[in-house]
C-alpha cells in the first residue's frame, strides 16, 4: 500500500503574475517559474504551519506546474 502524505497547506501562483514579479526582481530568482515556486511554497508552508519554519527542518513541498500556474502543496515533515 503506498504511503499516504496528507496535504496540509496549499497555494497557487499564476504564471502571468510570477512573470511580472520576476521582471521586476530578476536578481532574486533564476526564472519566472522559480519565482512562482518560491512564492507558492512559502505561502503553502505558512498555511500549513502557521509560521515560517527553521531552515534546518524543512517541510516537504511538492509542485504541480502548468503553463498558467504553479501550485505548491505542503505535505508535512517526514
Amino acid at each position, binding site marked *: 500500500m503506498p504511503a499516504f502524505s496528507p496535504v496540509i497547506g496549499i497555494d497557487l501562483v499564476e504564471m502571468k503574475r510570477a512573470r511580472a514579479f520576476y521582471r*521586476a526582481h530578476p536578481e532574486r530568482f533564476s526564472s519566472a517559474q522559480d519565482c512562482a515556486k518560491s*512564492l507558492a511554497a512559502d505561502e503553502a508552508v505558512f498555511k500549513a504551519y502557521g509560521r*515560517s519554519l527553521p531552515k534546518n527542518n524543512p517541510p516537504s513541498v511538492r509542485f504541480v506546474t502548468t503553463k498558467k500556474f504553479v501550485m505548491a502543496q505542503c505535505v508535512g515533515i517526514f
Partner: protein
Amino acid sequence: MEPEKNQLADAVKEIVSQALKVETGKIRLDSSLIKDLGAESIDFLDIVFRLEKAFKIKIPKGELFPEKLLTDSRFVQNGRVTPAGLNELKKGIPSGKWEEFSKNPLVANLGDVFTVGMIVDYLSDKLAAAAK
C-alpha cells in the same frame, strides 16, 4: 511634514505606484494599501523588494508588513486579532493607528492600518537608525 520626509514620501509613492500599477496622483499618505490601492499579499513582497533596492537596505521578513501574523492561530481567532496578536502588531508597526483598531480588532479592519504613510514612517525610522 519636514522636507526630508516629504522627499521620502514622494519616493515611497513612486514605488507603490510601480508595484501596484496605480497612478501616483491617486496615492495619498492615508491611502490604505489593501482597501484603496488593491494590494494583495504578493504585492507586499514586491513593495519590500523595491524598497530594499531603492534605499539599499535590508528589510527582514515580516518587519514592515506582518501579514503572516494574520494566519497564525496564536494571534488571530474567529476573524479577530487576539490581545497577543495586537501586541505583536504594535511592536511591528509602532506608528500604526492601533487605538482605533483595538476598539474592534477585526482582521478585515487591518487594511486601514497598512497605509502608505505607515511605510514612510517605517522607512524614516529605519534610515535614521542606519545613519547613526
